């Protein structure tokens, strides 16, 4: 296979500033016209340990994690230890001599006197921009863009700091020459007009485009960056951002905000969401719209706090006592992150149901480059009405959906009740009313139009791979590598309700392959239970890491994980 992409891995300690390198390099790549993607993994600690980031650079749209390492930048003395199985004879390894020789590898070693250079500048912190200079030269990026970015990033710290970062960058450019190697990637002019963003940012942009103007949440990895993103925008975009005392308060506040006519969201992870489940049920009976961003990480319990897994589909599916409808989306790309979150607000408002956006650490912390969205094509529709004096919040209708009033807008009263209630929203134990209300709630999604699975590959296939959420890019790239026209991929961006085309798509295949980043194959179980369709091969992983392309190539071809 001809290589048309490179994989650069930065390996260092927490607190060392990997983030500074990545964010600048990503902008540099995008503005220089390269497709790029970053996958991040880190330990649950503030300092020390070993964290790595994989940056992929390509001439085509790219978004998946690979095992392969073409260039490894070692920034700490234990930086090689966890990467040995991924280093081959093609891997260029750069870094302080002591670091890159701390383990025996087959890699091509390029010792660099980074510490010595930093002594000239007086602080090891500048090594971040030395690495940027190095990478910039190796991938022929436009250095002017880097200087502008450095200026912008450090201007507030004074001219001396800006100058030293500039010098560090130049040192990197010089050191790159000593490597006697370069990585040729074809530029794509189109990329210069695109936008580099993280998964978390995509959810935040989606929320803003969906009209979100209230977020109440409690910090929990990996969901917090969405809260931080909206907090950064609170003044400019008029969002009430409230850090709640706990997740229970967070979702109850969000329901109070929807009741008042705001568009509210919570962002949380499995353990935090578990605390919210009573209020999910409340949203069911009071028929409140609700948008829940559930950022998955491995459980049970506190699990692996900073790692990735798709283990909470069942939690989202069954959270909340009693019967009531819900919708669950799982974005696979950063464009999906924006579009699905926007859609979540629209669907929640129109159908008065809780809607989930199910992501995970791999999706959220990763960064990619995506086309700019034309927001004029993503309008929002507030469905609340101006009430009159005869207004009934839960008026029985054929669609099951009653007009939603909000307090003080009109002459009616808006009465919502956690107990079973009359059409007027007041407590009742009348059996006939109870039956009518249950049936009303359960038919609310009858008119809902599914987000159908996205078919990648030919419409005629023998083998169909099924996946959802953050595995999208890895499965897609694996199929490109396998290059077998008889294999297609059905991506479920809507995992619940199961889209109406699910049965037809799956029953056509001779062989069904399920890919899920969890231990039990939760979507597979749902499909088996609802449609009686079983998978021939299941590729599951629950070690806290995302699937690599290579793993899936092997798994899909060979029928084993």
């Amino acid at each position, binding site marked *: 296979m001809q290589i048309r992409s490179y994989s650069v891995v930065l390996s260092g300690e927490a607190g060392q500033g990997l983030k500074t390198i990545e964010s600048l390099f990503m902008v540099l790549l995008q503005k220089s016209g390269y497709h790029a993607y970053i996958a991040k993994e880190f330990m649950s600690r503030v300092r020390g340990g070993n964290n790595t980031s994989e940056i992929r650079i390509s001439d085509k749209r790219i978004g998946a994690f690979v095992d392969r390492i073409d260039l490894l930048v070692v920034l700490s003395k234990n930086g090689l230890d966890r990467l040995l199985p991924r280093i081959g004879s093609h891997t260029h390894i750069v870094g302080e001599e002591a670091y890159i020789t701390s383990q025996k590898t087959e890699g091509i070693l390029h010792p660099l006197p980074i510490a010595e250079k930093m002594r000239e500048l007086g602080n090891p912190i500048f090594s971040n921009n030395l690495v940027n200079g190095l990478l910039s030269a190796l991938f022929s990026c436009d250095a002017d863009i880097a200087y502008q970015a450095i200026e912008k990033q450090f201007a507030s710290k004074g001219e001396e700091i800006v100058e030293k970062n500039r010098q560090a960058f130049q040192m990197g450019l010089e050191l790159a020459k000593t490597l006697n190697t370069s990585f040729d990637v074809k530029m794509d002019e189109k990329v210069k007009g695109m936008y580099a963003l993280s998964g978390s940012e995509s959810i935040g942009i989606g929320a803003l485009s969906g009209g979100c103007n209230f977020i109440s949440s409690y910090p929990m990895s990996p969901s917090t960056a969405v809260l931080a993103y909206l907090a950064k925008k609170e003044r400019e975009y008029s969002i009430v951002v409230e850090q709640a005392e706990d997740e229970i308060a967070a979702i109850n506040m969000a329901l109070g905000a929807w009741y008042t006519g705001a568009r509210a969201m919570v962002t949380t992870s499995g353990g935090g969401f578990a605390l919210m489940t009573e209020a999910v049920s409340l949203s069911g009976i009071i028929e409140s719209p609700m948008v829940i961003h559930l950022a998955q990480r491995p459980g049970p319990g506190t699990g692996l706090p900073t790692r990735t897994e798709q283990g909470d589909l069942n939690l989202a599916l069954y959270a909340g006592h009693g019967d009531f409808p819900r919708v669950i989306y799982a974005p696979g790309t950063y464009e999906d992150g924006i579009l699905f979150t926007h859609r979540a607000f629209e669907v929640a408002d129109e159908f008065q149901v809780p809607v989930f956006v199910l992501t995970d650490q791999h999706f959220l912390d990763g960064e990619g480059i995506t086309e700019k969205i034309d*927001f004029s094509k993503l309008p929002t529709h507030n469905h609340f009405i101006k009430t009159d004096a005869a207004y009934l919040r839960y008026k029985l209708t054929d669609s099951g959906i009653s007009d939603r009033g909000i307090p003080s807008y009109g002459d009616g009263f808006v009465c919502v009740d956690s107990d079973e209630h009359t059409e007027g929203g007041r407590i009742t134990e009348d059996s006939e009313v109870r039956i009518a209300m249950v049936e009303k709630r359960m038919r609310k999604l009858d008119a809902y139009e599914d987000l159908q699975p996205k078919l990648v590959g030919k419409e005629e296939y023998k083998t169909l791979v099924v996946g959802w959420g953050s595995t999208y890019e890895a499965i897609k790239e694996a199929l490109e590598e396998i290059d077998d026209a008889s294999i297609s991929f059905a991506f479920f961006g809507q995992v619940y309700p199961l889209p109406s085309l699910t049965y037809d798509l799956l029953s056509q295949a001779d062989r069904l392959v399920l890919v899920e980043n969890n231990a039990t194959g939760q979507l597979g179980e749902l499909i088996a239970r609802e449609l009686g369709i079983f998978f021939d091969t299941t590729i599951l992983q629950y070690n806290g890491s995302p699937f690599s392309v290579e793993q899936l190539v092997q798994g899909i071809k060979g029928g084993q994980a």
Partner: protein
Amino acid sequence: MKKTRFDFASEIAWCPGCGNFLLLQLLKESLEELDIKPTDLVISSGIGQAAKMPQYVNTSFFNGLHGRGLSVASAIKMANPNLLVIAEGGDGDMYGEGGNHFIHNIRRNPNVVHLVHNNMVYGLTQGQASPTSPKGFKTPIQTEGVILEPFNPLSVAISLGAPFVARTFVGNAELTKSLIKQAIQYNGYALIDIFDPCVSFNKINTFAWYKANTYVLDENYDSSDKMQAMAKAFESEPFPLGILYKREDHKPTIEEQHPAYADDKRPLYERTRTAEELAHLME
């Protein structure tokens, strides 16, 4: 009984003789006397006999989950500061299940009236100890008497910076109405702990007991003196009634301080975003 625009005809689920009947009437009269428009009011409550109050009032309400009435009330105020918001519930609802929200909403200081019916017992679940039950109080669960220290909502509220902290007894109609009205007119979080006898499950703390074990603070009492208020909050048998603490200068409320309201006072539902504004997000 005086007629008000807040009267709502329905069957009421409280026990005959319950103090809640008195409070319901006093609340409606207070609202009427202040000429509150029924559509401008929202009552947020949780679960329990006290939390059923809004069901019997002609107004908008959010009768949500046990313990969460104050969280919802805060959010309603943050989403539309023009509404008059009352959070109402019992001692179990607001001080037990909702204890964490009680603490942190005082810190938020929303302009919300917080009415807590305090009967020192659980009514709806039939007679277990509440956070405010006195030591030694015997129940079907605390069979040999309550061991835990009773929760002191007033000292907690004052220590957390609540700007308006009061206590009343439903048996004193004039005082109760006067406090409710002052709380509504006060711009900031206003707590009224309301002694409200449970005739079915608390045979100790009865109407007669509350009457004998309370006294009204006289006009010489300086409610702006926080340390004195703290001392009053620790008094018991007799318990002082009236405004224990009222901050004289204005303490900024959360809804006044959120950046979303810095340049725009409209409720959130009136605001929109343009495609151009959104396009800036990807530049």
